[in-house]
């Protein structure tokens, strides 16, 4: 989240798209209700009428996988409206804070010119190889002046400027085209455009709440890009009640991502080294962005300080300037190679990966193409599962229809503590790191993750010291000191914050980090979370704080440096006066900023043009990007159909995203055999792979079985009544489910074409107190072109009576 | 030795006693729901179990009796519904009789006097009401509409009040009233003295003695 949960109450318009917060974030939904009671409008855009839709002022259906068309249509509406009513929009925000005025390489061509492709495509349209399905992005780059600073046309009239390129790009997304692609009725769509566009007025705020419905597509990252562009056009980033807010699906997924849950990043979103990085300097040269613009803060220029401090935290005294601070201890990935979920399971399936530690997750239920992933587990030599219950992953060898004797994998199940039985921090969607204490003792021999990791690491260090091994020093030289037997979680938290190694004192902020080895920090973003003043995450002061906009600055701690709303310097005009004086985030008063921790303390742009900096400090050029040249499938979001789609792409001959890797082309379902769109989702009553909730009697009683929701029209077509059992099948597998026939699903009417959609909650599996078929037996092994997140949300199925 | 005349046959007496005992049990186990102070006694439903056992007996007893004593039944039922001007005379004279022992105004009575026939009518009608409403409450508790069940309770209660108070009167007259010296014997042994019969059931006495020897 750019903003945070409590801040939603400041919004004037809220759009929940690709998300269902009432279902999946029931506690946080209270903030949305608070906003509504203060007069905010809630818009819900979803393939089916959800619990969130039930609370919304406006609801529009949209066919799964068509967010880009919907939002691009909204962007077109706003761009058109700017022509007619510029006074209703914050033009100075658009010109000064975004790259609308940037000039793009004249060689750039967009999908309007190239039948749905952007300039520079490598030509792997009919290939499966990820290396050929990609773009040469050189024609997408900014024009630079002689100093190497991006050129701008502040009149926004240059045909090569981003603003004009956008107008050309989005002009194709007319309301009728939007209807043809998404199935959203034209009048409802226009009502949403009109309502949401009111947040473009100076002093008004609109927020977009998204979740997995946005990301789990082969173009999920572009979905978010489209939200981003809309929000920037409306001046909604950086202000109270605005922002792009990813509602995380798990209580600490933000924290685990911050601390390098994903293969391509190190803690604090530092880039992972690859096999071209022979030396630390070479790595830093590659990953540290540069800017020649004195007005650009280019915050990532500090990467060397963060990287060296990280190495100091990990290797302590063994990390010296002479050994490049232990850089060569780090594993390096193969350049361009992907190590995310789908890739890992494909590697297991083909026998490349021989062992797995599966920690608090349940891929046998939650992974895409679950039948395949269960088979892949059987190819392992060993599998360690750490969980609080027996899971489908731990029990995969005794799943129905399988002969146990055929599976040679040795499986270990480590009993873990649940979140209420251990102390530590949890970072929520709003980036708040909140310290929690153990509320109860765990059962039996169950142990916390930290205890297990500590024990494992110390044992490995001992074994490598005694027996040696490849790159043994990477283990033996670890700075591993958290106490004996029972590691101290505070010692870990302090290490994450970091120390001044010359004094041994905890650092107050990441601005003190150095690249000379005199400081350490396990995660620069968390530097300031545990200082000499104590554990900041444990603070519980319920005072709303400055300007009474609900920042709660002394309740827990928020990265970075307790800044509650990031990019908040975009919430003020060039003089440092807030756009919205009723909900100021920061305010230049006298000679200093008052309010939230500003995005850098430099003076406002008109007050001190010499010493000021642009507000979007994480971008090398300092301006927010309408035009995003870093994306895999194009700098602007273009509608493509999901990998499996019931129709031909109405927008262009380019059917699907040209840049994602196709793993199993023979498993692609076609609409002649599988005419129905299917999506998976979660229920309020259950959680993820169901490990915890499917063993809770109260929850099982409320949602006892998996089901497939469908419209009355589709049910009539299949010839079934409510509550009847049906078989849902895709090319990957089939599931046996109860039919829930509802008015909340309606067939999509897309300019004369009717498309049916159904949905299945994915929580169930064959283990636990409540069992049932896993929806992920149906989902495909394809993922987003940028992130490889699987396409769980749109695929094709057929349904028949049992 | 006084001369005796048979007032009630053996089956009739058995029916009477079975019915009386079961009704008293039903009365008492029902009373605990009528008197809030007695509610504590009824907790955990044990009174309801007894009530139902008694109800089964209460309903079965006449069902067994009737086919075996068809004639007596017909006669009895007919009597319950045969009313004449003489009954009004009886009712007018009754207070003086029951309070003062003044028999002068009492018209001659059949086997049952007006008061008894009134009671007998109540027994018949309330018995039917109790049975129907009770069975509905028992077996249709979860299927009948709430309003129907509530009216069943209502009529059960009305029958309870009428039959219950009359039962008190019946027992009083049978056991305690100074003039009803042989009513007890009539229903216990089945006979009354000729003197008693002549005095209280003159018409009946005439009927039964016509052409018959008086049993001694």
């Amino acid at each position, binding site marked *: 989240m750019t903003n945070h949960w409590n801040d939603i109450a400041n919004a004037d318009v809220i759009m929940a798209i690709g998300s269902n917060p*009432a279902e999946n974030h029931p506690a946080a939904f209270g903030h949305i*209700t608070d906003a509504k009671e203060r007069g905010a409008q809630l818009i819900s855009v979803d393939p089916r009428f959800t619990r969130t839709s039930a*609370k919304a002022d406006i609801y529009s259906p949209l066919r799964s996988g068509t967010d880009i068309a919907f939002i691009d249509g909204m962007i077109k509406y706003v761009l058109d409206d700017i022509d007619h009513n510029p006074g209703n929009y914050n033009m100075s925000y658009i010109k000064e804070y975004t790259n609308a005025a940037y000039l793009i390489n004249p060689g750039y061509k967009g999908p309007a010119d190239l039948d749905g492709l952007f300039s520079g495509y490598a030509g792997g349209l009919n290939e499966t190889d990820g290396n050929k399905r990609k773009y040469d992005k050189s024609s997408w780059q900014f024009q630079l002046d002689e100093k190497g600073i991006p050129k701008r046309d502040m009149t926004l009239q240059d045909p090569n400027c981003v603003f004009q390129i956008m107008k050309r790009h989005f002009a194709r997304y007319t309301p009728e085209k939007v209807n043809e692609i998404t199935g959203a009725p034209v009048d409802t769509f226009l009502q949403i455009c009109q309502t949401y566009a009111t947040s473009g007025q100076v002093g008004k705020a609109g927020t977009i709440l998204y979740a997995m419905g946005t990301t789990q597509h082969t173009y999920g990252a572009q979905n978010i890009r489209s939200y981003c562009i809309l929000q920037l056009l409306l001046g909604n980033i950086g202000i109270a009640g605005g922002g792009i807010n990813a509602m995380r699906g798990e209580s600490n997924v933000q924290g685990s991502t911050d601390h390098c849950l994903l293969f391509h990043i190190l803690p604090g979103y530092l880039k992972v080294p690859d096999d071209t990085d022979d030396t630390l300097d070479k790595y830093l040269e590659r990953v540290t962005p540069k800017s020649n613009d004195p007005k650009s803060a280019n915050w990532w220029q500090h990467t060397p300080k963060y990287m060296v401090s990280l190495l100091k935290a990990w290797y302590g005294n063994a990390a010296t300037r002479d050994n490049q601070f232990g850089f060569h201890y780090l594993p390096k990935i193969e350049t361009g190679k992907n190590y995310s979920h789908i890739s890992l399971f494909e590697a297991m399936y083909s026998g490349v990966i021989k062992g797995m530690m599966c920690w608090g997750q349940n891929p046998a239920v939650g992974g895409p193409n679950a039948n395949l992933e269960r088979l892949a587990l059987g190819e392992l030599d060993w599998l360690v599962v750490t969980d609080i219950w027996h899971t489908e992953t731990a029990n995969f060898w005794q799943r129905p229809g399988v002969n146990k004797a055929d599976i040679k994998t040795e499986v270990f199940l480590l009993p873990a503590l649940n979140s209420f039985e251990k102390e530590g921090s949890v970072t929520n969607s709003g980036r708040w790191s909140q310290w929690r204490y153990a509320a109860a003792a765990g059962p039996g021999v169950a142990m916390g993750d930290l205890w297990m990791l500590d024990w494992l690491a110390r044992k490995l260090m001992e074994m490598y010291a005694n027996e040696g091994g490849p790159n043994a020093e990477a283990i033996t030289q670890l700075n591993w000191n958290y106490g004996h037997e029972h590691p101290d979680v505070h010692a870990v938290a302090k290490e994450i914050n970091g120390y001044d190694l010359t004094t041994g004192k905890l650092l107050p902020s990441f601005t003190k980090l150095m690249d000379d080895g005199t400081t350490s920090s396990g995660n620069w973003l968390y530097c300031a979370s545990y200082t000499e003043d104590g554990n900041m995450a444990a603070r519980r002061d319920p005072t709303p704080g400055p300007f009474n906009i609900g920042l709660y600055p002394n309740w827990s701690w928020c990265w970075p440096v307790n800044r509650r709303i990031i990019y908040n310097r975009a919430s003020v005009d060039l003089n440092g006066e807030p756009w919205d004086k009723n909900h100021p985030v920061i305010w230049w008063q006298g000679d200093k900023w008052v309010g939230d921790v500003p995005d850098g303390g430099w003076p406002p742009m008109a007050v001190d043009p010499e010493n000021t900096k642009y507000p979007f400090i994480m971008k090398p050029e300092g301006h927010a990007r309408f035009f995003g040249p870093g994306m895999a499938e194009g700098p602007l979001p273009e509608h493509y159909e999901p990998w499996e789609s019931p129709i031909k792409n109405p927008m262009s001959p380019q059917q699907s995203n040209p840049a994602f890797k196709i793993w199993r082309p023979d498993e692609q379902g076609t609409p002649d055999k599988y005419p129905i769109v299917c999506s998976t989702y979660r229920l309020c009553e259950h959680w993820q792979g169901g490990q915890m909730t499917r063993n809770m009697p109260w929850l*099982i009683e409320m949602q006892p079985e998996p089901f497939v929701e469908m419209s009355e029209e589709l049910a009539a077509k299949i010839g079934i009544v409510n*509550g009847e059992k049906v078989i849902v099948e895709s090319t990957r597998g089939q599931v046996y489910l109860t039919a*829930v026939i509802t008015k909340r699903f309606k067939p999509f009417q897309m300019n004369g074409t009717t498309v049916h959609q159904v949905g299945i909650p994915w929580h169930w599996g064959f283990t636990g107190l409540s069992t049932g078929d896993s929806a992920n037996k149906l989902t495909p092994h394809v993922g987003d072109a940028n992130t490889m997140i699987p396409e769980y949300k749109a695929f094709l199925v057929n349904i028949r009576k049992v | 030795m006084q001369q005796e005349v048979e007032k009630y046959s053996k089956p009739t007496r058995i029916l009477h006693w079975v019915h009386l005992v079961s009704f008293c049990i039903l009365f008492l186990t029902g009373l605990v729901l009528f008197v809030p102070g007695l509610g504590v006694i*009824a907790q955990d439903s044990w009174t309801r*179990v007894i009530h139902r056992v008694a109800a089964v007996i209460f309903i079965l007893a006449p069902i067994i009796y009737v086919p075996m004593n068809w004639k007596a039944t017909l006669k009895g039922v007919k009597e319950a519904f045969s009313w004449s001007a003489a009954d009004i005379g009886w009712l007018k004279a009754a207070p003086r009789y*029951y309070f003062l022992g003044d028999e002068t105004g009492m018209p001659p009575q059949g086997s049952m006097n007006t008061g008894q026939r009134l009671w007998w009518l109540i027994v018949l009608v309330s018995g039917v009401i109790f049975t129907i409403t009770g069975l509905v409450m028992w077996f249709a508790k979860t299927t009948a509409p709430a309003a129907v069940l509530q009216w069943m309770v209502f009529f059960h209660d009305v029958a309870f009040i009428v039959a219950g108070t009359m039962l008190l009167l019946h027992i009083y007259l049978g056991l305690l*009233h100074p003039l009803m010296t042989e009513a007890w014997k009539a229903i216990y042994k089945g006979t009354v003295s000729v003197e008693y019969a002549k005095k209280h059931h003159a018409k009946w006495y005439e009927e039964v003695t016509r052409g018959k020897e008086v049993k001694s």
Partner: protein
Amino acid sequence: MAEKAILYDATRCTACRGCQAACKQWNENDEFIPTVENGVQSVNRGSYENPPDLSPTTWLKMEFREVTPDGKVRWLFNRRSCMHCTDAGCVKVCPSGALYHHELGFVAYDKDICTGCGYCEDACPFDVPRYERNFVSGIAKMDKCTFCTTPGLDRIAGGWEPACVKTCPPDALQYGDRDQLVAEGKKRVEALIAKGWTNANLYGEKELGGLHVMYVLDDHPAVYGLPVDPQISAATIAWQDVIQPIGWVVGGLTILGLGFNYLVARANINREKEKKDAARS
């Protein structure tokens, strides 16, 4: 003592059913789960709603309604539990005093002295009391929401709010002084009307002398499946207010009358006897 109440705002409710689970958990009521041990199969019946009905172990359940006024679908959520009426039909008909008005206004329940008569089941205008009943023997016990005042599990006496209110994440449930909640409810209804919900209303303010669970609704109560203008039934009134008093009077007079008759008759008849004896001698 000021009367307490719960205010349920259906417009805030997201039907997460935290209340439903918390109610069972706090009151130690069994669940219907598909385990061999309790033999009860819990199944999906083509709806999010489950269990299918209130039961002796389900004192609170959320209802889901799909309605389509003017063609647009609405998904309405509604709380189903005891309304804790001031004019409570159940209290009126309860023969043992097991159901009674708590000093804070709501309808409390002493399960120990429940006779299992089933009268409350039929007298409740909201169809709330549920029985565990043996059909043959008639052994039965009623159960319903006790406003968290069940002995041993009494949250109210402990100064806490009821379990359902405590757990409600979107603050759709509030517990407090009834007067204040009426004012709060009216305020919310006005805000809803201002937003265009012209049928918005506060349900339970006046119904049955005032309910102790009140509803903020954005539409007519009937749309939410709530009885419009609920009343204590005619049968209850005819029975409790007419026949029962008559029964007491008739029964009392009969006993008095019989006693009087006995005294008078015995005296007179003895006198007659004496006269006769005197005449005889």
